[in-house]
């Protein structure tokens, strides 16, 4: 598949010398990232599927419609939104708050470029992950978002990704939250084609001292192969809250890598998935405790129906320097069918001796005793199951701070649960 990438053409189209350098070194490292593939994608045959469906890893840049014709697809309910079409930021269809910087990398001043080169492609996982390196090579013009120091943005910013292409699409963004600032994003992905599509997204997020980020994302795309890698670097006293919701698609692979580089960092990772048919949902997360006194807290829950598969892999690293670390991890699954499957694996590497770490994973079925209890009060079997499953999800949704987003996600879960076939 690597040979389908025309590096010469890509480099000739790229004007920025630093980006050219980044791309060619990613290309050189691609073969070695394939060495990791076997282990990291043990249960997720993403590459094989993509080889079968797509002639090339490279994107097709022509659009099916004129840009302004996509306007109707913007949700009315959002105040601030960034509209991304096939991985490209569309300024004319977006509405950003005045006090933050949102720009394509190519449009930045030389000085600004210098500033962002500290983050851009500096801590992503493209050295170890084949699809992240494919993103580094193939993405066209990174989107830069920066919140200046001492600013707390009350309103959430929606990032709407629309996929309207039968070729692979790549989206790349850098988010920089400066000291003492606070921001919240909700990202969603929409597949407007009726065909199989492939969307590949890589994000790098820098949280400076004492900053806070809420990041909500929902993946609800029929017939899409979705690769999403989020890479976070946190400075002291910063907080990140990630909420990842995944529903029936073809294959969804999420990498969430968080580096807690300094003291007193706080990272929360919550995930919920409900899938049916023959979907595959794979969450790979890693938290790297690099310094003292930080807390990471992770809880993923999922419901797997019909012939679907779930994969969870949670890595926690606690370096020798990272004394007084608290790291918690848990993954719970309910299988609704004999054909449903889950592979779940906690992976802890602890080098410090004064730490509190816990992990646990469960794979089970619906509680028959609880089901009988509900039914014995006159509630139909179908509704009793829905009640139990939405109760199962509530432990994750109750962590959502934003009431509007919480209600939206709860409704999406209800719709999904009602559509399950339980077998």
């Amino acid at each position, binding site marked *: 598949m690597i040979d389908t990438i025309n590096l010469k053409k890509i480099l000739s189209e790229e004007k920025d010398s630093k980006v050219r350098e980044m791309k060619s070194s990613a290309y050189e490292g691609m073969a070695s990232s394939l060495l990791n593939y076997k282990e990291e994608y043990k249960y997720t045959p993403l590459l094989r599927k993509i080889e079968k469906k797509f002639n090339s890893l490279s994107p097709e840049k022509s659009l099916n419609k004129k840009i302004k014709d996509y306007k109707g697809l913007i949700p009315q309910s959002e105040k601030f939104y960034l509209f991304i079409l096939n991985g490209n930021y569309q300024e004319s269809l977006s509405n950003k708050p005045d006090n933050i910087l949102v720009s394509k990398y190519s449009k930045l001043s030389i000085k600004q470029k210098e500033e962002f080169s500290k983050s851009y492609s500096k801590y992503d996982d493209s050295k170890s992950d084949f699809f992240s390196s494919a993103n580094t090579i193939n993405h066209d013009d990174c989107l830069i978002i920066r919140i200046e120091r001492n600013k707390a943005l009350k309103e959430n910013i929606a990032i709407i990704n629309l996929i309207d292409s039968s070729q692979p699409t790549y989206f790349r963004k850098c988010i920089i939250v400066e000291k003492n600032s606070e921001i919240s994003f909700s990202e969603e992905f929409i597949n407007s084609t009726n065909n199989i599509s492939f969307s590949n997204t890589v994000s790098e997020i820098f949280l400076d001292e004492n900053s806070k980020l809420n990041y909500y994302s929902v993946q609800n795309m029929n017939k899409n192969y979705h690769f999403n890698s989020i890479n976070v670097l946190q400075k002291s006293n910063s907080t990140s809250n990630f909420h990842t919701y995944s529903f029936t698609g073809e294959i969804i692979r999420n990498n969430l890598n968080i580096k807690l580089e300094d003291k007193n960092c706080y990272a929360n990772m919550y995930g919920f998935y409900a899938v049916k048919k023959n979907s595959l949902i794979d969450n790979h997360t890693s938290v790297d405790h690099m310094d003292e006194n930080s807390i990471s807290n992770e809880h993923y829950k999922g419901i797997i129906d019909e012939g679907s598969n779930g994969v969870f892999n949670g890595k926690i690293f606690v370096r020798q320097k990272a004394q007084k670390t608290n790291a918690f991890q848990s993954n719970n699954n309910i299988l609704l069918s004999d054909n449903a499957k889950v592979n779940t694996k906690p992976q802890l590497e602890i080098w410090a001796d004064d730490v509190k770490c816990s992990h646990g994973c469960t794979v089970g079925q619906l509680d028959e005793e609880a089901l*009988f209890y509900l*039914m*014995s*009060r006159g*509630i139909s*079997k179908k*509704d009793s199951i829905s009640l139990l499953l939405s*109760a199962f999800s509530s432990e994750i949704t109750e962590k959502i701070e934003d009431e509007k987003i919480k209600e939206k996600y709860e409704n999406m879960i209800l719709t999904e649960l009602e559509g399950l076939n339980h077998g």
Partner: protein
Amino acid sequence: MLEIKNLHASIDDTKILKGLSLKVNAGEVHAIMGPNGSGKSTLASVIAGREDYDVTDGEINFLGDELSELGPDERAREGIFLAFQYPVEIPGVSTTNFMKTAVNQIRESKGKKPLDAVAFLKLMKEKMKLVNIKQELLSRSINEGFSGGEKKRNEIFQMAMLDPKLSILDETDSGLDIDALKIVSNGVNALRNKENATVVVTHYQRLLDYIVPDYVHVLIDGKIVKSGDKNLALELEEKGYDWIKVKN
């Protein structure tokens, strides 16, 4: 109202009920007593429709309908209520939400309109008084972290909300102190009327001081071996179950 004829039931090929017959009319209270393992809780579960049990012979008629083909939800809608010996804890579902769904699904099955929020709250307030249960408890997840007494009160609260025709109380006295026992019994007595019936399943005579039965049946080895009035319970208390076993 309830007529059980020659009922045989087993679980995992172990025979538990071996030809049990029982007739309960509206307005009556029946007590089923018996030693451990005699099949008392099985009888309660089989009437409520628990799927773990196989009914291998006999029939259960309720208001003229044969129950064996009906699921537990359909039986509840017909008017059967089981107060559990061990009420289940269900994290994430509040009792209030649970009861609202149950009340309205039962209403719907009878062609009635669902209760709106105001009417439902009014009904709830009224029934809460009956068993002295607080709103705060009902807003919490079903039975989660409840004491033994609170769980049993919640059972009787649910019974009051659903207004069943036949209530089966499975070892409702187990795990209750004397004050809680009084509250629960008062609740049950307040719900009694000429139209409904109650079956009390219990080990001990103690509960029957508070919920006074019209009939007492002794269940041993899957069959009712002796029936009588409330004095039978007193006699049992005095002489123990061996007294009947020996006589048989």
